[in-house]
């Protein structure tokens, strides 16, 4: 099977890998690049557990073919902290107990980052709609919403 050579920037590092054309970006990240932070909950774009940023936009990695990543800049949950210093969202998720099992957490963090990058002062309703593509079965969302609100406050310097 012919394989395509892909060049991307992943979490700040230029990264190259070979992939079959039918491989999802999620499988390429997990199996070929070795970044297992993005999770597969459904493989059909319905749960958001594989949310990553591709050129600053939040995407379900399971819905992209790996060759589509060529030339893009990707951020996964592994790249969210800055040299070991947690992103305010990560810190607020920890302090606010916004995770139980933790499988959905990487996706929520990336979707929330995409929201706050665009809208630093979202209402509760805006947060709920921005995260409506991410399923969490443990928390009932309450503490996730509060953690995003708190992170937004901190990032605004309040």
């Amino acid at each position: 099977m012919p394989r395509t050579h892909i060049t991307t920037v992943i979490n700040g590092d230029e990264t190259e890998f070979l992939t079959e054309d039918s491989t999802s970006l999620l499988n390429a990240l997990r199996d070929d690049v070795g970044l297992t932070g993005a999770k597969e909950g459904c493989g059909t774009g319905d749960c958001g557990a594989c949310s990553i940023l591709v050129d600053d936009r939040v995407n379900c990695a399971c819905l992209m073919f790996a060759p589509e990543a060529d030339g893009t800049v990707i951020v996964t949950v592994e790249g969210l902290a800055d040299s070991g210093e947690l992103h305010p969202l990560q810190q607020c998720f920890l302090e606010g107990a916004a995770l139980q099992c933790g499988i959905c957490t990487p996706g929520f963090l990336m979707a929330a980052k995409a929201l706050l990058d665009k809208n630093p002062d979202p209402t509760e309703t805006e947060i709920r709609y921005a995260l409506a593509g991410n399923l969490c079965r443990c928390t009932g969302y309450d503490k996730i919403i509060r953690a995003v609100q708190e992170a937004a406050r901190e990032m605004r310097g309040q």
Partner: protein
Amino acid sequence: MAITEENPGYKWVGTRPIRPDGLEKVTGKARFGADLVLPGMLYGKVVRSPHAHARIVSIDTSAAESMEGVKAVITGADFPDLSANGAHPSDIDVANNAIARDKVLYEGHVVAAVAAITREQAEAAAKAVAVTYEVLPHVLTVDEAMADNAPLLHEAMITKGVDPAPEEPSNIASKILHERGDLDQGFGEADAVVEREFTTKPVHQGYIEPHAAVADANSDGRAHIWCSSQGHFQMRAYTATVLGVSPGTLKVTAAEIGGGFGGKTVIYLEPLAVRLSQRAGRPVKLVMDRDEVFRATGPTSGTRIKVKMGVSKDGKITAAEVWMAYEAGAYAGSPVGAAGMTAIACYDIPNFVVEGYDVVCNKPRVAAYRAPGAPMAAFAVESVLDELARNIEIDPIDIRLANAAVEGTQASYGPKFPRIGFVETLEAIKEHPNYTAELGPNQGRGVAAGFWFNAGMMSSATVHVNENGTATVVTGSPDIGGSRQSMALMAAEELGIPYESIKPVVADTETVGFNDVTGGSRVTLATGAAVVDACRLIVEDLRGRAAKTWDVEVDQVEWVDGQAQHVDGAQPPLSLNDLAAKSGRTGGPISANASLNSRGVGAGFSTQLCDVEVDPETGVTRVVRYLTAQDAGRAISPDYVEGQMQGGVVQGIGWALNEEYIHDTEGVMENPSFLDYRMPVASDLPMIDCAIVEVPNPAHPYGVRGVGEVGIVPPMAAVGNAIHDAVDVRMTELPMSPIKVLEALNENDG
């Protein structure tokens, strides 16, 4: 809000620090079931039945075996036939559900599995396995399965619990019965009687992580399994049974688990992965697709439930009659037993009959789901109680207070309740501002209550004091929702050292003593009690070492705030750090084990208040305000107690309004995706307000009751009662989807 009967002044218990495993889970480092990769690892794929009920005529694996990259293909014939060995019937069912031998009993039933070098090769090979079926007539619901002359799933199934035993086989696996008093007399004393019939659909636990297992088998018969599981000791036992080997030949490591809610207390992939690894001589990973999770893993039962209840004018329930039939799926074992025990357990009722049937049908075998069996029964009973309260014009909290089980009440299922906190949850709702908050147009308010036993069972813990006075707390209970934090908080309290000095660890089956599953709301209770016991052994040891150091009797030594103190202050205190550093001179390493079979279960109660708004044009129901009050006994870790309460409520809201298995007439599931099986998302919901009630369980060192399950018992009735309050229709079918609400509204108008 916490209602606490006493404040014992704990330093760590009841605080909200950051969970010990949090950092790994917000940085992507935590390794879940599908994240493990081993050198030389193969990818597996399972072949599943497209038919709801069929006899397997033949399986031809030759084409698959000859395909590129394929290293192993297995079928039911690769496993021992337990029925020929005289094994226990429930073990035979576990084995036949893992991989079919003669018949497939539901769409998605495993018939074969393959392993290949790449995922794509495995998928292609799975498609090339040729299975010839003789399709049989099927039954999908309790009504079809209990009908005269219904096709049988198990030709030899004789209903248990009926005396004399029936002569003819049927799809009814068993009957349960609880009765007390005289029904006729009770209904005769009633001033109002309501009788209703309810149906509910199978719903899935909906954990976001699909099942996953990696097996690495050695040529000497031993194997190592990594899997996403609520109980790796249980996985070891089941897998050993299916493989026909001794449990000791298997080592099981619990990966981080991405949700379970009961659905990961059973095996699916583990024995297949081991057998494939044995055949291929290489490690094998098996991961389910979401589609497979829906088609082949544990939903909970669809049900039909009839409830008749009577009350006197003063609000006393005089009689209750409950009849229920629960789908078990393909093999006996629906949670109708627990349903029968919980259905009316909140109340002190003098006359009742509760009758239930466990019914097999051609759907996936049901698995435990959060308070298994109780939510459907509560939907029926609490809906009828709501209607009775309206008929005699009494407040919905007051009617529940008038009948509430209290300490000393003979529970409907037998024993007398010790100290319980049901009344306190009712009062917490009544005192909360939500109870009197103003309602808008088309809005309504509903109350419902629920009971769950909580479980104790077996746990083991080991505590090691490290050479710098920190401690490692080792248990075998997979942490599904923050239990490492509870263990660390209790250990910190016992040892008197900072929470941050405790490292809680979930160990594999070879590194710690036996632990039953993470389920039944039992981990903080039972595994926590084992941790407390082990810590107390450590403290005893430390007091002895201090006494030896000071050359005094041990009763002269107290353990206070993490240090040994002489009762008269005759010696400078010795900290845990001091004693740990000198352990080599005072008896060697400081370590203790504790194992127990917990009998100190404390029952859990929850009362919930739901406000909805119903759109009369579309039938769409939206939850606008929600309050849950639950007796935690003691909230060791309030953050994660609230998390359990909120999570249970929201699963219940999904069950109430959206979620259902939809099958076509051939028994094929039509909505096996998160798009079509609609679980609640963030934009569907308001914040979920929590009132943690703390009525300590007298049988636990910290008063823990267990909090994981009871929160899912009341929501369906709370939502249904709120819909009734809003638009005056009584919903008796779940889910209360827009189309059904609209139909009910139109009937009312008609």
